[in-house]
């Protein structure tokens, strides 16, 4: 197992925790956290820039008199480290001066003592940056980006590898060392037919080493997206409007569960802690066990899926990770909790505390969120639709800050008529409330695909790696425009 190459070890961090306790903290944690790696940008086949990122430093979080304080620094001298502890305590005292109703405390979750590392079959450090660039270039250049009737106006590809290393010590006995390398490839491709254009953004990512380059086919993704752009620009026509049955692809199911189940299930959001930033949650109006959707609707968030972009085994409060059943057969089942929110609800944390980097406090986050597969095939979902729409890929999406009303605009979509896929449709809009969405699902296919992304939340904004996905799912009687 590759070791965590941290300039501060468990012993050093324990001293910081002890110092915080001696200054009056009832709880303290200290985390060394680094993120480092390379980026490369390729524009229309040419490298336009490359770079390195290295973020590393220490975060200290404490509770004093029911107030929560956080401080961080990247100066690792003895004076700086002593100062960061004192500033965390001082910050907590400032918080405490305003707290009258809800003093912060931690739950009694078991604390992990563990050391783990994601296996890299082909380590990121095994080849030089120039060779990595060549590997990416080879895949980009070999892609056939032609489609009759369209002109590809631009293709920008970004490659990024970041290895995350953490050493965490808590005053409740938690002690975790973790090393997670991750690779991301993003691209933006723009195509034109006459005066009409379409963009497609796509993201391929995983945790692990360079072996993922063979598993995740960049060339195939590019070619498939050019086909989608071509279909949208050349063949698609305006489709039916009104109430129809809709089949959604794993890509659409994924963005939907992330936005309209994953985010609203975050306990800190439900409690109002993110009210002025990421917003509130319609789950405030429900309690565990309440029916939200149909029996076909089960949504799981699971950080422990190997190789995924959202993978981890212990969270940033040293709580062991496990699968969370957010929605079980249509019923609200479990919120995502960290130790602070779990203490409020009188439950135990389910290991959802994540911090992006050493400058970030751990807050409640998703990991790998997906709609659970059912028993159908895609063909069976379609063949039972008399009049409907299949949305395969999307362009625009957004959702309100209560996570109630979402909008998805299709890039590639098809008419369904009498159980068969028909003509491609242009700019299909599905604008729907979350309860209506999950109440309308009557069947899910057996297939399952996860899509990576960065999820934003917190103040300052923290973008953490996640995945989202699902099988093909069918919604009965929903309005499209």
């Amino acid at each position, binding site marked *: 197992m590759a070791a965590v190459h941290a*300039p501060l070890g468990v012993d050093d961090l324990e001293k910081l925790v002890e110092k915080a306790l001696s200054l009056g903290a009832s709880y303290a944690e200290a985390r060394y956290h680094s993120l*480092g790696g*390379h980026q490369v940008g390729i*524009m229309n086949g040419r*490298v*336009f*820039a*490359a*770079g*390195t*990122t*290295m*973020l*590393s*430093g220490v975060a200290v979080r404490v509770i004093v008199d029911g*107030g*929560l*304080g956080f*401080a*961080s*620094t990247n*100066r690792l001298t003895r004076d700086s480290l002593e100062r*960061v502890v004192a500033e965390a305590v*001082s*910050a907590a005292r*400032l*918080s405490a001066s*305003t*707290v*009258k*109703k809800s003093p912060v405390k931690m739950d009694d979750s078991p604390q992990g003592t563990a050391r783990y590392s994601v296996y890299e079959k082909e380590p990121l450090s095994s080849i030089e*940056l120039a060779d990595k660039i060549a590997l990416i270039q080879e895949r980009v250049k070999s892609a056939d980006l032609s489609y009759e009737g369209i002109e590809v*106006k631009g293709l*920008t590809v970004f490659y990024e590898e970041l290895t995350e290393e953490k050493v965490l010590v808590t005053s409740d006995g938690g002690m975790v060392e973790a090393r997670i390398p991750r690779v991301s490839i993003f691209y*933006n491709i*723009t195509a034109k037919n006459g005066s009409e*254009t*379409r*963009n497609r953004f796509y993201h391929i990512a995983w945790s692990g080493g360079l072996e993922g380059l063979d598993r995740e086919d960049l060339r195939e993704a590019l070619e498939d997206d050019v086909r989608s752009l071509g279909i949208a620009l050349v063949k698609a026509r305006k489709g039916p409007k009104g109430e129809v049955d809709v089949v959604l692809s794993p890509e659409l199911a994924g963005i939907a569960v992330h936005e309209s189940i994953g985010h609203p299930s975050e306990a800190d959001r439900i*409690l*109002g802690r*993110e*009210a*002025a*930033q990421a*917003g509130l949650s319609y789950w405030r109006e429900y309690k565990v066990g309440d029916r939200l959707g149909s029996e076909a609707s089960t949504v799981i968030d699971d950080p422990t899926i190997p190789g995924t972009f959202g993978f981890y085994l212990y969270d940033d409060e040293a709580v062991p990770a496990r699968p969370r059943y957010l929605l079980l057969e249509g019923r609200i089942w479990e919120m995502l909790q960290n130790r602070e929110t779990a203490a409020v609800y009188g439950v135990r944390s389910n290991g959802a505390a994540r911090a992006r980097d050493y*400058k970030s*406090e751990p807050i409640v986050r998703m990991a790998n969120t997906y709609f659970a597969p059912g028993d159908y095939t895609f063909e069976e979902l379609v063949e039972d639709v008399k009049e409907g729409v299949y949305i395969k890929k999307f362009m*625009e999406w*957004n959702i*309100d*800050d*209560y996570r109630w*009303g979402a909008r998805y605009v299709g890039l590639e979509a098809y008419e369904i008529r009498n159980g068969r896929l028909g003509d491609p449709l242009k700019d299909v*809009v599905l*604008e*729907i*409330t979350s309860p209506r969405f999950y109440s309308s699902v009557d069947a899910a296919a057996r297939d399952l695909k996860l899509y990576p992304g960065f999820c934003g939340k917190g*103040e*300052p904004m923290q973008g953490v790696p996640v995945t989202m996905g699902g099988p093909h799912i069918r919604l009965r009687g929903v309005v499209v425009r």
Partner: protein
Amino acid sequence: MVLDEIAEAVEKRIRSLEGKVDEYIITVEEVSNRMLKLANGEASVTQNWRTIEVGLYLARRDGRIFYTGLSAHDPEKAAAEAARLVEAVEPSPLYAPLPRADGESYSNVDPKIKAYLEGDIQLDLAGDLELDLVGTAAGMAELGYVRRLFLNSHGDRLTGERTWFKGYMRVFRGDRTGQWSWTGVNYDNGERARKAIQVARGLAEECEKLPLEKIEPGEYRVLLSPMIAGNLVNEVLFAASAARLIFAMTWIKPEMLGQRVVSDKLTIIDAPRRKDLPEYTLHDAEGVKTRDKPVIAEGVLQTLLHNTKTAKLMGTETTGNAGLIMPEPFNIIVEPGDLGEEEQLEALGEGIYVTNNWYTRYQNYVEGTFSTVSRDAVILVKNGKPSACLNRIRITGKIQELFANVEAVGKTRWPMEWWEVPKPTLTPHILISKTKISLPTI
């Protein structure tokens, strides 16, 4: 002097790698900031940061370029590694010879903020916000100070320092809310913050008094508050970055220069030299002198935002808008119009007053097709008076068409900066006709 020591050590390492790097920029920033974050009327956390950030730009005359962002404890080692890696890349189509740093050093500091962050004085941040009077509220208030040192391979050296006090508050009255933000360079004992909180509170209370109504999707006249106007004018100025054009991520095209792209009532300025806004700077990330300039003047596109690289590629001059990698705006200013705040609802007549938004997303960057979702108070106005509160609505369409339909621009401007207004933005309300509103199916 920590900054000098780090910069000199990094420079020494780069120079020791003779022949590997021909040009370089080293920036070292010492940042300290403290943020009080509030939820349910109490502090949910207070956060404190004290960091040294190092930015490196390394290039060879054959066009290879390499960027490094270090927020780390060992910048010298990382600098040496970066210098080694310059060889790994091929010559870039974006390369341009390193310009001389003709910008100036600057200081735009409130000594009170600096002293507070150094621990030399105390400020009653929580007390100055008068949280006890607000009732249930969530938001944040942040004080910050940054000191920077710029060096380049021409031997140019510049310094800069600035402070900020910014934040936003969402006030709750039952399930009705209002939100407003503030930004500035000095700590005014919380005066701007209290004023913003008062507006947020007023909006929540206004909505609390009104019945809840539903509307049908369609075209409406809308009054955009400085919160949402701020978000959308940020979108416009980021769309004017030449990098967006190069990456096919904007509706703005070079042939639009000198052409009317939005209503003639709209003038939007990039204002790095505006001293009362936090992104004040007299030099950009390439050391080039900054200048205030209208990007859109009376509806006509005046310029794109360039650094020397995008300028060379497009056959023009830098506008002094370099970030370390991409050109971007600094402070954004919307020129005031003649619509007074007391008469704006009357001017709206029949329409919707949208006070805040989030999640602006593009269906198509090249065509400017987007949607954005309202949050907080959305007030239906009839006969020039508030008649009902609405649930969340969505504004859809093309951003350039939205701004082509500006009917009036407000007189009073507000300094805004928050999650959805990433650059400090001084903007009034904006009244727009024929705005497409869509709603989800219940």
